[in-house]
């Protein structure tokens, strides 16, 4: 088990979590955090070269392989970022050492939970993992103990638990659907077996199950109208957590949704999940695009932009077809890299400006050129401008959609444009114009941010063939 990379990916965070819970001292713990995540990342990288055989509980295939590596990578960079960020927080006393300890431990638990959700082959296990991740983030969102933070955490908690319940019901239904075909016992919850036999399942049960799963996991994905927790959670938690939330947790939840979409795709009699996902995707996109306009808190704004992009991705998968699915997968990857990079920038911006109010920021490219231009680059990327990766995926989504159903494409384009205008309206006030607000200083670590952006840029110009190969395989299975 320990030789198995999967085992390592799961064990390292657990051990690290225990260690960090026990050890005092900022420098040391921060270092351990970074090292642990780095180790996890390196192990995960090894998955590219050899995949362990699948067990009833764990498996690695084309779909989750990429996402495991992505998750561990972003986890690693975020830990680097958080080392500098949390240091600053300690200095200004927003965070006490005890909470720091708690924070680091929770961070590792979160990593563990997400990796578990990704490698899980058992849908029950996946459910447990995702809920664990949710609860951890709830605790971390509330970590500042300000009224707003608690309130955000509470909201997240309540809505999250309802989501949990719905998702569980869906999972049970899947089991019920699988049981007559596969027989009682754990096998009926093993995804690989399920997907292999899905053709014989009872379509009505599958449909019902999917509805519940869509709402249950959709709450985690932050699709409108289930999104309510997301902006508050992002704006109130520590920025590294916002980065992980937007960059990873949403992805993981969406990943779970995809797994079940595959089940339905494998069953011809079941209703096509496409229309549901398309509708929810478009609603989220357009809604979030309009919500961007009135935002005055920088982190909230980018939280809404996350909703927007989740909408785009869900839409893409809903449209289905080789191109759209490929685009969706690409978009998931690009978005998690870009959005976490943006949050790295935003975190430091909020620190140097001492506020999250957009009104109190201005002329950032003047006062803090590196940070400012980093943010500009990030927004340029997230807005889907070339030559960065998101342009590619949006290109594929829009073109492939318009040829098939022009009307939907028009709505999509409308949403994109509205969101675009809003993003840049804000960016112009933050990054350009006369410098506003106080400009303090921070020992920022720019490496993570620029590493992400560099990756996104590279992907925009050149996509490595193996990655493309995997994505195309998955795209086929996704139907």
């Amino acid at each position, binding site marked *: 088990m320990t030789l198995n990379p999967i085992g390592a990916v799961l064990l390292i965070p657990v051990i690290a979590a225990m260690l960090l819970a026990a050890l005092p001292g900022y420098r040391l713990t921060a270092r351990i955090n970074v090292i642990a995540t780095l180790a996890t990342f390196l192990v995960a990288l090894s998955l590219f070269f050899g995949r362990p055989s699948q067990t009833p509980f764990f498996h690695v295939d084309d779909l989750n392989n990429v996402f495991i590596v992505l998750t561990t990578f972003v986890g690693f960079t975020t830990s680097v970022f958080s080392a500098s960020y949390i240091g600053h927080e300690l200095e200004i006393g927003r965070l006490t050492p005890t909470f720091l300890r708690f924070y680091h431990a929770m961070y590792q638990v979160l990593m563990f939970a997400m990796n578990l959700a990704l490698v899980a082959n058992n849908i029950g296990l996946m459910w447990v993992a995702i809920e664990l991740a949710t609860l951890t983030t709830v605790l971390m969102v509330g970590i500042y103990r300000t009224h707003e933070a608690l309130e955000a955490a509470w909201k997240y908690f309540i809505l999250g638990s309802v989501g949990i319940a719905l998702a569980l019901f869906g999972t049970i239904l899947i089991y019920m659907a699988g049981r007559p075909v596969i027989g009682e016992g754990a096998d009926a919850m093993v995804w690989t077996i399920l997907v292999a036999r899905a053709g014989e399942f009872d379509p009505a049960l599958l449909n019902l199950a999917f509805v519940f799963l869509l*709402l249950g996991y959709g709450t985690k994905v932050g699709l409108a109208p289930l999104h309510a927790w997301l902006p508050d959670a992002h704006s109130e938690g520590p920025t590294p957590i916002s980065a992980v939330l937007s960059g990873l947790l949403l992805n993981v939840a969406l990943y779970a949704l995809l797994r079940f979409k595959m089940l339905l795709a494998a069953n011809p009699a079941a209703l096509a999940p496409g229309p549901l996902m398309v509708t929810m995707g478009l609603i989220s996109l357009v809604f979030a695009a309009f919500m961007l306009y009135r935002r005055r808190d920088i982190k909230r704004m980018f939280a809404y932009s996350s909703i927007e992009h989740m909408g785009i991705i869900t839409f893409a998968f809903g449209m289905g077809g080789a191109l759209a699915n490929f685009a969706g997968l690409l978009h998931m990857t690009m978005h998690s890299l870009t959005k976490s990079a943006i949050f790295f920038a935003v975190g430091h911006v909020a620190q140097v400006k001492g506020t999250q109010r957009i009104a109190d920021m201005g002329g950032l*490219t003047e006062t803090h050129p590196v940070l400012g231009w980093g943010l500009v680059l990030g927004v340029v990327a997230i807005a889907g*401008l070339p030559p960065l990766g998101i342009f590619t995926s949006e290109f594929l989504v829009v*073109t492939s959609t*318009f040829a098939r159903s022009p009307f939907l*494409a028009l709505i999509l384009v409308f949403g994109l444009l509205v969101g675009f205008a809003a993003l840049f309206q804000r960016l112009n006030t933050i990054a*350009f114009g006369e410098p506003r607000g106080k400009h303090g200083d921070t020992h920022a670590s720019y490496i993570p941010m620029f590493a992400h952006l560099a990756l996104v840029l590279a992907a925009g110009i050149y996509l490595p063939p193996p990655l493309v190969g995997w994505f195309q395989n998955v795209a086929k299975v996704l139907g």
Partner: protein
Amino acid sequence: MTAAIVLVCALLLLLLAVGAVALARSPLANALVYGATLVLALICLGAGIAHLLGGAAPESVALPLGLPWIGAHFRIDALSAFFIVVIDLGVAAASLFAVGYGHHEEAPARVLPFYPAFVAAMNLVVLADDAFTFLLSWEFMSLSSWALVMAHHHVPENVRAGQVYLVMASFGTLALLLAFGLLAGPDGGYTFAEIRNSHPAPALTALVLCLALTGAGSKAGLLPLHVWLPLAHPAAPSHVSALMSGVMTKVAVYGFVRVVFDLIGEPAWWWSMVVLALAGVTCAMGVLYALMQHDLKRLLAYHTVENIGIIFIGLGLALAFKAYGMAWAAALALTAGLLHVFNHSLFKSLLFFGAGAVLSATNERDMEHLGGLIHRMPQTAFAFLVGCAAISALPPLNGFVSEWLTFQAILISPQLPSWGLRFLVPAVGALLALSAALAAACFVKAFGVTFLGRARGAAASAAHETDRFSLTAMFVFATLCLVAGILPGLFIDALAPVVQSLLGDRMPVQTGVAWLSIVPIAESRSSYNGLLVFLFMVISGMLAATAIHRLASDKLRRGPAWDCGYPDASPLTQYSAGSFAQPIRRVFGTVVFRARETVAMPPPGDPRPARLRVALHDPIWDALYVPVTHAVTFAAERLNHLQFLTIRQFLSLVFAALVILLLVLALWP
């Protein structure tokens, strides 16, 4: 070979951009970056000219970039080659100009890195041979130019300009995205080769045309999508303004030509109606807007709108003739359009250089504070004058030639079978004539108020002649304007392969014609000889001068201005830009811009000055853009309430979603 050369240059330019980030602070950066750009542009220019004149066959390059299963395709044919020439000629001059002008830049770090990137992007657009690469370069071009517009971001208008520009740009890109989506089909045949071979249904191609017109038009500045142009072009540093106005709009024209003439096959007759109507209106409105401006650079930007209109008239006519299989006429119209592309890129860049020189000498863009600069900066004044004459379509300069050809194309229109076109085209012709006359009026104003008369402000009276690099750039282009004006035959023949490749026919060979004159169709029908007219004028002018000086007197005495005997008044009594345009404003403005003049005349004995206030309304902005913005803000306001629901209410949203989905399931057949 050519494609490879240009690609390598583009790559080097991108590297240069990266490098510029590093050394932007150093004093050498300016000369280095612009020098390098100049050299690379010249290389591309050479390659382009060689390919165009050598009549080389189209060549393709495919790189394993972009979409992996497609790759990045690049192809250079006559059309691309021609636009490479246009682009890199403009770039070369702009870079040369900037070697000197760049020293006045207060924020070089915000200009130097983006300038080469912008240039590279423009070159890549015309080379691209698949939808993805095309749009990527296209949008990258917008992005880099946006960064340049934002260079002087301390001025609030510039930030707003950047905002409008980028939004309009991405609007255009999305339109093109949709167009290519249609052409490529659901399973993504994105390469142009595939698109050429796929023959979509007429309805689809019509839709594609509209989308292409929207997409390319919004970048070129076709009404009513021009709004960003007069904001963004002046905001950028002048050499960039020159590129944006003189070259980038041409890249947009390229996009339109590529899609409509090359990719989507046979046009339907009514397409040209759409294009021509839009183009005619663009023409007239553009120049009317320009007449109302006091800001020199904005005035020039609006004239870009006008000239884009002229170009699109040519293209529209070509479409019409092509639709009815009159290839020879189509060739004439298209040649006229493309020739105007070239000419406009010459004199518009030249004029923006002049404006830049004035700006750097006086820090003043508002003409009302300028004047008398011809005394302070005579060479700039001369070059600018040539530009003004050229853009006002005065023989024997180049602007006239392309407009003359356009008129010739218009005069063929009666042979079109369609009644709609027969009636539309003369009307468009009238609009064209009107805008030509108004353009002349406008440039009398521009030159007269800026350079002639007496200085209206301290800045103007303290101005100095600009540096020699800028002057060289200006004079090179001024000369080119003259050459292209007196030897148009050469340029028309150079354009022949382009037209041939797109329409399968070309204008008659011009170089053979006696006395180097040009004959669009037949000598009996019409002909023009710029060279001869030029020589006539020179000779007769000289004759008159010498004769008078010999036979009559050549005595001259300086004295105070006569001015009907009024004592010499202050420079403020001169005609200003506003007062010069007043008659035209009263004729056209009262209708188009709802121009209202209110005079506040103090009662007798009151020493306060009387005030004349002029109120103008931009009809298009008011009719189109204000409502849209209002709608968006309204919707945002409304939806924003969803931000403040209670947890219970959010839960009820979830609940509602669940119930609805279950209902869907229940009702599912």
